[in-house]
Structures are given as structure tokens and as C-alpha cells.
């Protein structure tokens, strides 16, 4: 199993768990496993097109997955994934 660290505002949807054990595979498969365990989380992580929302940044260990292979980055047993919000918005 791998582990996903949950940011404080989303812990309400993981029974207040700060970290959740998930299946390894690719990053997106691990995150999908998280939303299978906690379905209420899905609408906050994914938009209507089932793409990760703009604010959702994923780190594998210390590395932004955008600097690796994106959603297809391999997740091995014992790896730690962090979901970190990049907050954005504005009048336009």
C-alpha cells in the first residue's frame, strides 16, 4: 500500500484522517482508490469532466508530479502522496 496525506480542509470527508492507505499503481489510480474509500471527496477533487480540479496539486514524496510523469507517475509500495491545494480565483 501507499499513503495519501490529506490537507486539513478535506479531512472532514476522510473521517478526519490525516493520512489514508491506498493501492499503489499510478498516481491517478491511487487517488481514485481514495475516492472509492471516501466517495464524498470525489466532487471536491474532480470536476464534471472527471479531471482533477485546478487547485489540486499532487506531490510524490517531495516532488510535484508535474515534474515527473504527471497522473501516470508510478506509485510504489510505501510511497507517500500529498494532496496540496494551490488556491486560485479572481474576478474574471
Amino acid at each position, binding site marked *: 500500500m501507499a499513503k495519501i496525506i490529506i*490537507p486539513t480542509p478535506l479531512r472532514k470527508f476522510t473521517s478526519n484522517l490525516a493520512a489514508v492507505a491506498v493501492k499503489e499503481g499510478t498516481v491517478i489510480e491511487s487517488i481514485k482508490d481514495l475516492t472509492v474509500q471516501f466517495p464524498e471527496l470525489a466532487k471536491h477533487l474532480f470536476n464534471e469532466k472527471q479531471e482533477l480540479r485546478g487547485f489540486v496539486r499532487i506531490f510524490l514524496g517531495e516532488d510535484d508530479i508535474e515534474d515527473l510523469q504527471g497522473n501516470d507517475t508510478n506509485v510504489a509500495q510505501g510511497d507517500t502522496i500529498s494532496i*496540496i491545494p494551490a488556491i486560485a*480565483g*479572481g*474576478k474574471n
Partner: protein
Amino acid sequence: MKILIVPSALRDIHDIAEKSYPYECCGFFYGHIENDLVHVLEATEVINDSVENKKVHYTIPPKAFMKAERYALEQEKALLGVFHSHPDHPPRPSGRDLEDALPELSYFITNVHQGQAIDTRSWRLTEDRVFIEEQIEINYSNK
């Protein structure tokens, strides 16, 4: 939820919004939640990291969020929400504000009209991902 904010925190948000005009400012605020009341005690600025037009958009990078969570822990306060400004625009969430919003946080928006902060409103995302307005009241007891 209802917001109770100490005057110094609201003044800081307005000062930051005015200083940043005509660009959007952004930052976090901290305090605690008690009996469904959000007590805002402190606000701190984050430099708008948007690579788009900062007059209409703001970005708080992931590392700033990590830092804010750590700061709240050290200060024994809760990270309560995010503030940003709408220069010469009503303090209502845009479609973009909604698309990227997180649940369980309050979103303050300050309308800065011709360089002067005139109104701050608070919004919170429901579980159905709709923004509802929260009442803001000044807490003169500073607690």
C-alpha cells in the same frame, strides 16, 4: 457560519487590498471556531503568484498553503480561510472562484473601489459546491 473578526485583522486585509490595487491581493486568516462561530484573529498576506493578469486573477502556490498549515499549528490556531480582492468589482465569487474553491474554508472578498477598500463579504462552499454568504460582524472584544 457567522464570522466574528477583530478590527485589526479586518484593517490588515483592507490595507493589503489597498496597497495591492489595481492588482488582486490574497492571503490567509487564522483564529478558531467555537459554537459555529468563526473567530478571525489574524490575517497574513501571500504574494499573488498568478502567471495570468493579476488585475483579475490570483494564485496561492501549494508551498504557501503548506507553510500556512504549519504556521497555524505553531500558533495553535486554525487556518480558517482565504482572502482576496476584487479591484473595482463587486465582492461576489466569480465562476473561477467557485471552480477552484475548497470546502470547509471561508472566502473573504474585498471590493477595492478606486484604491479604497469599501466592502468585505464572506462566502463558504456548501457540500453541493455552491457558495453561500456568511455574515461578518466586527468583534470589538478582540477575543
